């Protein structure tokens, strides 16, 4: 029986810090279409050039460099979850070995990100009386401990528990309450849970590849970190990570993730639709989608004919508008689901600060911007992750947003509740709407 994740989180944090101090950490992003492995080298001496930091939210004090990059087509992974253990292990071995070869070092500690496991977000509130009127870390820990655990279910695991807001008496919106004076400290906690089995599978896969797990993260959250600008994170924005199996949805406000969820649909479904519609193989469908896919059809597209091999070796000819006709409904469906989820999360309460950033591999579809604008009913942009030192250009597209986010996260992670002195034992339950409302009202 594997221990609940939150109990070992302190150990994982320690391992991550050790690895960063040693100067070497690996990142593995387990996606539905590809598995990525980065090797980061932390060197305090690297001077990050101003060109790189311009307009980007590069974490301060930690300079790192990507020394090894490898990607492989993912196997045995579906909806961001490991389905076939053996195949997934093979894929992980492939990327790890390739990245090790490129970097010429042995990888020991890895941070893993994944997007599956049906994530659920909870907003929780914890309160404590201040003993000597000055807030210390212990008070924060006490406040966290006093928060009510929601009944998130026996077969689920907490993967993120982020203290997102602190308030002392009637002052709120504090980022760091330490040193403040007051009589009562309230902490708002953002709790994210995923399916236990998903986590266990990932831990098992990493273990059988002789790697040490140093942390687990939710991939759409990381995509948001890497693709959103500092202003967007600060003022409030949603990030939609359109992956192959999962379209992750995250909402950021005041530099904190306040909501995380996902739609179990993605680019792979589009490919499947194409494959079914024109009765071509999956590989061919994927290729058609990448080369000729689009969402806005024009009259010229009727004359754009694509000749492809079908299942029974005969050549068939399809027009681009036909292709768009297949792709568009699925994308609309995905975006509508995303919109619904954003609404459920209370994104519409952000009023005129609503902004959505699309990343992920599927966001490269031409015409997505216009369509998303229409469906999500708010300003949309297609975001690319910020540049990271040492990363090859080919791995800097929106499809690598989660991996780049993981790199940023590795050097400068958000405090989680288990990073505070008192380990939390109980957490209360509240609807995410509550915390959203609370935020909007008080801000």
């Amino acid at each position, binding site marked *: 029986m594997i221990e609940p994740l939150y109990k070992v989180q302190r150990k994982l944090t320690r391992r991550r810090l050790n690895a960063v101090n040693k100067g070497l950490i690996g990142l593995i992003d387990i996606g539905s279409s590809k598995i990525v492995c980065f090797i980061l080298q932390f060197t305090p001496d690297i001077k990050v050039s101003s060109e790189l930091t311009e307009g980007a939210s590069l974490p301060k004090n930690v300079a790192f460099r990507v020394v090894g990059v490898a990607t*492989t087509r993912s196997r045995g992974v579906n909806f961001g979850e490991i389905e076939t253990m053996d195949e997934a292990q093979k894929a992980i*071995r492939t990327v790890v070995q390739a990245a090790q070869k490129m970097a*010429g070092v042995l990888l020991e500690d890895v941070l893993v990100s994944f997007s599956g496991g049906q994530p659920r977000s909870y907003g929780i509130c914890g309160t404590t009386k201040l003993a000597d009127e000055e807030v210390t870390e212990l008070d924060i820990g006490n406040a966290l401990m006093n928060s009510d655990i929601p009944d998130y279910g026996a077969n689920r695991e907490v993967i993120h528990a982020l203290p997102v807001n602190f308030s002392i008496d009637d002052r709120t919106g504090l980022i760091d309450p330490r040193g403040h004076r007051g009589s009562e400290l309230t902490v708002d906690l953002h709790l994210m849970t995923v399916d236990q089995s998903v986590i266990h599978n990932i831990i098992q896969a990493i273990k059988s590849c002789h790697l040490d797990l140093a942390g687990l993260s939710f991939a759409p959250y990381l995509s948001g970190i890497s693709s959103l600008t500092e202003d967007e994170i600060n003022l409030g924005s949603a990030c939609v990570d359109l992956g192959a199996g999962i379209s992750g949805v995250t909402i950021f406000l005041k530099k904190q993730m306040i909501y995380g969820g996902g739609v179990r649909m993605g680019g792979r479904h589009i490919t499947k639709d194409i494959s079914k519609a024109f009765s071509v193989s999956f590989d061919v469908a994927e290729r058609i989608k990448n080369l000729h896919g689009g969402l806005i059809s024009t009259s010229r597209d009727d004359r754009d004919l694509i*000749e492809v091999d079908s299942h029974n070796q005969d050549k068939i000819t399809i027009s681009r508008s036909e292709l768009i006709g297949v792709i568009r409904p699925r994308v609309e469906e995905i975006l509508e689901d995303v919109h619904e989820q954003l609404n459920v999360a209370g994104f519409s309460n952000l009023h005129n600060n609503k902004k959505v950033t699309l990343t992920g591999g599927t966001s490269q579809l031409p015409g997505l911007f216009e369509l998303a604008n229409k469906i999500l009913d708010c300003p949309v942009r297609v975001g690319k992750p910020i540049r990271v030192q040492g990363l090859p250009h080919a791995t800097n597209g929106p499809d690598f947003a989660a991996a780049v986010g993981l790199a940023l996260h590795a050097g400068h992670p958000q405090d989680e509740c288990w990073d505070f002195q008192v380990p939390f034992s109980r957490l209360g339950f509240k609807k995410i709407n509550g915390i959203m409302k609370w935020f909007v009202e008080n801000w």
Partner: protein
Amino acid sequence: MFEIKRKTSVSEVRFDPAPSKVAYLANRIWLKKSSRRSFFIMILISIVLFVLIGLSNRSNFSLLIKKNTEKISQYVELSPIFKVVNLSVISEDPNVIEKISSTLALNFPISSLDIDVEVLRLKVESIDLVESASVRLTSNGLVEVDVNIRKPVAIQRLGTRLMLIDARGVKVDEVLSRSQRLDLPLLVGKGAEKCVDEALHLLLEIKDLLSRVRGLVRVGERRWDVILNRSQVILLPEKNPLNAIRKIISLQEGQKILDRNISYLDFRNINRPVLGLSEETSKELKEIRSLVRGENV
């Protein structure tokens, strides 16, 4: 118009890029610095061990090499290129030829690789008769020995043995009787062989008297006595005996001194030569003197 071709058929087996568990683990172990270092250390140790084992078995090893090389060398040695079939001695004297071939005692045919020319030369030169020799191998399979034969110039008598010696006093041969080499002068006495040259010069000066000379005697390793027939002896000085001889010869030519009845001529002191009469003659002389002077001696 675009065309998309299917890249792989269904039946085709795809290459799996994933490393096997063992290969992956081996790769990780190899990447570890310490394991890489220990691997090299292990290689070093095994090399050292190998060498040590090899050294301990060295005798066996060398024996093995010897065995194998012997076969090869035999094959090479017996090849016609290296075959030596005969000995040729450049000399007219059959005695010399026979002596050299018996000394060398070579069993033909032999390989030229087995022949050490220097050793053969020393062997040939160890023969008394040979003064110097040169030995070489010719291309037509001969051992060619060129010898420089010592020339006997005198006979030396040591006790009852008669030796032939050359000008430097080195023994050349032995003869059984004096009559075998009547052409050579006889030298007697201890140390005579050291001054053969002087003796020969003396004999050259003697010239006409040579027929009367029976031999030279070295006295006390410092001077010569010339022994003539009719029991006459000439005692020569230590220094400059040639002068003394010349004086004697001139006396002989002028006064036929040696034809007279004297027993010795003492020239040891050249300024005061002494003439020794025989006993008989001196008696006769006394008688004559008493007759002439009428004295009773």
